């Protein structure tokens, strides 16, 4: 991939060597790292502890200076203050001022973006609601649990509705609800064309949300590419269906054998612990059980979902009502989120799955769509369609026409 000015982040030969007092080389934290991250991409930096992820992020933010190599954010050097207006950053640990409460914290950071008072207030309200801290907004940060601090840290990273969101271990210290919400949020932001750079060693989180990843080890780039390309086991096919009896399994085995395929594994899938946990908490919250901690987060803040603040929308609606020409763009309802390639793929896959299910068994309810399937799921499904047709003993095109 060649670096162009369209890339959100570009690093060329990025190297960071830490030296001791006598300028002797102590550790080479990052070595010759070449990255190009495109707009709208969710990019993951993966690696074990000490692999150089945080050092890389610190160089991107100008908190460390490269020993060699070059960094460009939105085509500008990392130390350029103007680009910071488009960047949101959640550090590895939540380094907040303990003497401020949540509202004051967000207000301080919003002021640094020169936001007018009414916008600050509205955004702070929405973000506190979103991260589930509205009820404890006036408690000092030093009274918060680590997870609650993490939530407020996330809120401050979003206060400016950033075009580039840099998250260092975003789910560290968060409960599964918060983790799920962060992942959902990343999906929504990516859907709006925002770029997210995520550093984590929690592989499941990265796998859930990232389009592309870079694996670092010892400060060097070991692998980089799309998740589905890196993880695809091209030699195998997995089918999930409702419970099959032994006879059906035998038939399947025969069909596979006829096609010179071997049935390698048959098992009953288990629910994910994350799903079970979320279900229990949702039930408890539905019963309004008392808790002194964070609540499940509310809906994603309006300005993050639509890119417009409430007051901006309200003004447009009022102008329409009084027949004035809207000054920006005609908005009868909030503009639909900008579809990303991934979101479009989701819809295609969903459509196909529903029509396939309808064809297979009209009485069976459609399975719940995954909240964020891999962007190239469509391609994968098409590849599997042949085997599926064989199993069902029919021709897909014929069924489609019927």
């Amino acid at each position, binding site marked *: 991939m060649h670096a162009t000015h369209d890339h959100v982040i570009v690093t060329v030969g990025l190297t960071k060597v830490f030296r001791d007092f006598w300028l002797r080389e102590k550790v080479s934290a990052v070595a010759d790292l070449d990255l190009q991250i495109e707009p709208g991409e969710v990019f993951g930096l993966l690696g074990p502890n000490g692999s150089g992820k945080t050092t890389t992020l610190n160089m991107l933010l*100008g908190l460390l200076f490269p020993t060699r190599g070059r960094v460009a954010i939105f085509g500008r050097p990392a130390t350029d*203050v103007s680009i910071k207006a488009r960047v949101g950053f959640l550090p590895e640990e939540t380094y907040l001022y303990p003497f401020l409460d949540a509202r004051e914290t967000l207000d301080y950071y919003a002021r640094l973006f*020169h936001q007018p008072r009414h916008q600050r207030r509205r955004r702070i309200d929405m973000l506190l609601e979103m991260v589930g801290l509205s009820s404890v907004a006036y408690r000092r940060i030093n009274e918060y649990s680590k997870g609650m601090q993490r939530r407020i840290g996330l809120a401050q990273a979003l206060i400016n509705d950033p075009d580039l969101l840099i998250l260092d271990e975003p789910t560290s210290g968060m409960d599964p609800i918060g983790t799920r919400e962060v992942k959902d949020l990343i999906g929504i932001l990516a859907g709006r064309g925002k770029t997210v750079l995520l550093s984590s060693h929690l592989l499941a989180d990265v796998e859930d949300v990232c389009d592309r990843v870079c694996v670092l080890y010892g400060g060097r780039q070991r692998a980089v590419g799309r998740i589905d390309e890196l993880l695809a086991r091209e030699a195998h096919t997995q089918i999930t269906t409702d419970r099959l009896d032994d006879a059906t399994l035998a038939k399947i085995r025969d069909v596979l054998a006829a096609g010179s395929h071997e049935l390698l594994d048959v098992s009953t899938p288990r629910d994910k612990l994350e799903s079970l946990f979320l279900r229990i908490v949702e039930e408890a919250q539905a019963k309004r059980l008392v808790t002194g901690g964070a609540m499940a987060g509310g809906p994603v803040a309006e300005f993050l979902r639509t890119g417009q603040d409430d007051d901006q929308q309200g003004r447009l609606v009022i102008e329409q009502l009084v027949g004035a020409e809207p000054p920006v763009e005609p908005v009868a309802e909030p503009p639909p989120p900008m579809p990303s390639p991934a979101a479009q793929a989701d819809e295609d896959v969903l459509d196909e799955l529903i029509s396939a299910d309808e064809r297979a068994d009209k009485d069976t309810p459609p399975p719940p769509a995954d909240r964020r399937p891999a962007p190239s799921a469509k391609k994968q499904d098409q590849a599997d369609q042949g085997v599926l047709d064989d199993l069902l003993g029919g021709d897909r095109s014929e069924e489609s026409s019927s």
Partner: protein
Amino acid sequence: MMAGPSGVSTALGGLTSVARHTVVQCLRMKVVGATIVILGLLLGAMPFAISGDGTLAGRSKTFLSYSMAMLSVVLSVLTVFLSIWVVSEDIRTRQIYGVIAKPLARWQYILGRWLGVCILSAGLLAVAAAGVFALAQYLRSGAISPEANPQDRVAVETQVFTARTRVGPASENVQEKIADRIAEMQRTGQYADALEAFKARTGGDEAEAQELLIAEVRENITGKLFAIKPRESKTWRFEGIDHRGRSVTGAGRVIRVDNESSRLWIQAPPAVQGRLVYGGPVRLNDVEGTVITIRDDVVEVSMMLEDMLKPAIQRLAADGSVSVTAEPTIQLTYKAELSQRTSDRQITSLWRFEATGTAAQLLVPRHDLNRSPATMTIPAWVVSDDGRTTVTFLSQPHRRTGEWYTVRILPEDVAILFRVGSFGWNFLRGAVLLMAQLAYLAAVGVLAGSFLVFPVGCMLVFSLLPFSVAGTFLRDAVNPEFLPGPLIVSYYIVHVMGALLPDFESTAPGPWFVDGMAIPWRFVGKTVLWTVLIRTSLALAVGCMIFRRRELARVQT
């Protein structure tokens, strides 16, 4: 850097956000609250705990001296601590990450931190200075010292709670006379003999012998020039006395007349009463009297017996009206020294004041303590319109023993003082000087915090402070002639530091208040220029440069 009005407003917006945050941060620190409480308790107790020399004036001077010194020390230490802490702790705790990741230039952060500490210091200074001012006024009212006599009250008003300036006598050029005398000694060959004699005393050290010889010559000359022998007199001429005092007249009301004690009690209109001072002149229906006390808006006036008999005074009665004229005053300060011991160390003298070029003359008899500074308040009409006056000391025999003696008054020990402003405005100028000091210390603190951890930063700043608070002493103490070998470097360190760092010794407001001297606006401006605009800006510029090049995510060791 940003350009244009919107760029400037954006830059200022970031800077003021950081400053605002700094003020909130500092106000929520326990150390600030504790400092305010301790300062309040100490200041509140001070007027009752101190007594000075036992007089109301002495007590007031001691209070002003101690309270301003305490204010200066406590606020300086607090400012240094806070300014280092807010920057170094941000870096140590990595809270700086969240701030620098926002659209805020590093120079904005440094200036914002400095501005925040300055605002807090200014607020604390304003509150504490208002407290000192209020307590000083309480002392001035005499509520704590009801026993104070009229002379004491005069001294309080004319020497402490005022803003005066000083004019010395026309120069007698002692240096020239010393040079002439030395030249004459060299011509006549006396110099070499005298030098040999002094060398014998100094163990052969010629430089020291020369110094001793010159000191001896100076002593001889000044002894002759400034000694006032029995039945002789000594005259000094003063110029440039711009006391700006004008008589102010208004209609007052008579409260009481006591013919036996030749006293009158009157109420004067505020514009007139504000210019009356204890012991100062006042004219009632154009007859001159002296203000004895001013209490509860009532002025007690003493008159000469013959003046009480004048028709203009005779017709005055309780509840009647009277024309009150406040006359401006000036003061003479001097220190006389007896050439021999006397039984009670008292010096009796007569002073004559003449408005140069006029026939106006005033004679004042005095009894002063040997080698003690003395001040007398006199009407300003002894100064001619062009600001000149002639003062003569007339030798007098001791008032009890009748003994004559020689008195010496050095030219630097005699001066005319005259009021050029009010104590309130002078106090404000003093507070501005203190604020300049705090602004500078905040800048140095922020600079130290930008590259050092808190304890090391404190150590650095407090090791620099002696050069500012005791620069004169250090410069005098470090004499290159007596420094062996490599220690000569200390001489250069002291002098370089003296040039780089401001001199807090000369800009401390306390001594000005104690002497009742006006702090000139020009001096305030010069101090602000050098301390704030030049030295503070320099410290901040260096701090910004260091901070700009600093890797904030690098682990500090």
